[in-house]
């Protein structure tokens, strides 16, 4: 109980917000808008799971938004070429994994700080995409939206996919050796090395996995609309990092569980509609996101200081 205090407090906050919404804004719980909200957040959840792994491994990846956009546009172009859905799907995941491997090689291979490496890849990918596409939208062929299912079935498919990935990863992080490796490397890379784990290799694979998840999330985003916006994924890195640190993953690595990230993401997802109902203008969203990140890390900082004393 005490061990998961941080995660439980996030879950409690989520419950309070949901209760407040139920009392003051019952319209929030109408099934169709709620389903749409969850569908919109499904790709974000997949990326947030990957970001949690990266941060548990004591790294960070701020290039996910640009990777996401590149995967979306590539998947859209391939689909427009008339390739079948499974091929497009595999290509999107593959491109994401490749981009992740690039980050991973620079961070793990050359031992460069991940924040600077991913800052560089973030801008390079984003500007490269803008240069190649000049902001053009990609029109998708018929039958791709919602995988060719009707909308509600498509939405449920996406939500289920995201949840399956969450559950599988939560299980893997707790019970599989690979998951424990990530915690070990994030807690103390040198100790992990002495215990026979190869920290650099683990870090590399975490970045590749992050990229693959981004590719998957991009695919989950592409099927939601008849067009691909080349600007999609802008700010995704901040959104997912916010969800991860609010969800109780320590920014210094080695601590946190995916269920906390899940609760953190839901909490953030509920705040935005709640603000709309409180008549706070949408322009405040970025500022509030920054404030939430700072509050979450301050809370962790205060707690760890108390524990030391």
């Amino acid at each position: 109980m005490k061990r998961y205090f941080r995660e439980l407090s996030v879950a409690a906050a989520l419950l309070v917000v949901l209760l407040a919404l139920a009392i003051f804004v019952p319209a929030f719980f109408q099934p169709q808008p709620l389903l749409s909200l969850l569908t919109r957040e499904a790709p974000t959840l997949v990326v947030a799971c990957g970001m949690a792994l990266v941060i548990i491994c004591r790294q960070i990846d701020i290039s996910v938004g640009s990777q996401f956009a590149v995967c979306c546009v590539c998947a859209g172009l391939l689909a427009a070429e008339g390739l079948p859905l499974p091929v497009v799907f595999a290509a999107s995941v593959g491109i994401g994994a490749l981009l992740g491997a690039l980050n991973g090689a620079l961070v793990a291979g050359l031992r460069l700080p991940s924040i600077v490496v991913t800052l560089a890849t973030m801008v390079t990918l984003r500007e490269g995409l803008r240069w190649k596409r000049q902001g053009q939208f990609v029109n998708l062929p018929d039958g791709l939206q919602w995988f060719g299912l009707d909308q509600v079935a498509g939405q449920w498919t996406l939500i289920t996919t995201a949840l399956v990935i969450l559950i599988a990863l939560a299980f893997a992080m707790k019970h599989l050796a690979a998951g424990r490796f990530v915690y070990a490397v994030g807690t103390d890379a040198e100790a992990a090395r002495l215990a026979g784990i190869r920290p650099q290799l683990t870090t590399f694979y975490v970045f590749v996995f992050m990229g693959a998840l981004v590719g998957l999330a991009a695919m989950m985003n592409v099927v939601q609309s008849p067009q691909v916006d080349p600007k999609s994924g802008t700010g995704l890195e901040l959104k997912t990092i916010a969800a991860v640190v609010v969800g109780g993953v320590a920014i210094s690595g080695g601590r946190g569980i995916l269920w906390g990230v899940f609760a953190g993401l839901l909490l953030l997802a509920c705040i935005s509609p709640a603000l709309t109902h409180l008549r706070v203008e949408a322009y405040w969203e970025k500022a509030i996101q920054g404030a939430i990140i700072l509050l979450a890390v301050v809370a962790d900082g205060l707690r760890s200081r108390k524990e030391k004393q």
Partner: protein
Amino acid sequence: MNTDNHGFKKHLLRHETVLLLVVAVEWFYFNSVGPRFGSLDNSFDILRHSVEIGLLALVMTPIILTGGIDLSVGSLLGLCAITFGKLWRDAGLPIPVAAGCTLVIGALAGGLNATLITKLRLPPLIVTLGTFSLFRGLAEAITRGADTFTNFPAAFLFLGQERWLGIPAQAPLFMIVAVAVWLLVHRTTLGRSFRAIGFAPEGARYAGLPVERRIAMVYVLAGVVAALAAIIYTARLGQAKADAGTGYELFAITAVVLGGTSIFGGIGSVHGTLLGVAAIAILNNGLVHARQPREVAGMLTGLLLILALSSSVVPKMLASLRARRQISSANIHQTKPA
């Protein structure tokens, strides 16, 4: 120790000479591509356009020397430009007072970073990532995403657009800050303490340095200078918008790393940073003269950062690999008789 120091100095010298060569090659290349590139007018144009990024890079240098990073400087530039416009137009303050208040706001914003980093011992990257979003978000919220401040008086625009004694009016300001930061980093005990902290924070603490105060100082300095850059930016463009300075943190960090400052802290120089700024500014301006789209400049800056980072690390890694192989082969020979 002595030879080590000597080798390190030689390395720095070499790095900066190479960079100078790169700048020269860039210059001659773009001169041959764009007919107007080499003119005096264009040289002043390059100087004018690089002042804001130059200022940010100058104060980013001590931050990276201490082993930290500040991702929020570009956003802070945007926020300060907005508050400056707001104070002048809506609060009706005269320009000098508004500028003074803006500098104070910059110091406060830098102080927020400093407090979170030193008092709570939080990693600079996550703190400044949070304020990166917070400052830009505040700028958007204040202007509601649309409000722009224009129609500044001509006397103020002189600072950004006219010439004074034949050089761009903002250049003297830039030079003053550059000399001040150079003296701070290379000629004072404060500068030495930044390096000491970057090399080993614990060691610096045991040596009796007030590590927290020194670290707080570099972030507050960054805040003040970002506010100054915001004022110059507003004077140059004649308008203040919420998206002012977007992505400038990348240019500043790239200039610093390109200038030979180690991203892990402890090693680096201000004159290297100035050369880095020159390399980026000439690249940006030259690409325009070579009729390349604007996006290419951003893309190349990102690639340049990756190259600069790897070029400093790869030789060291190869050397350590070789050393390890030698040691392990020596070990094998030693253990054989036993």
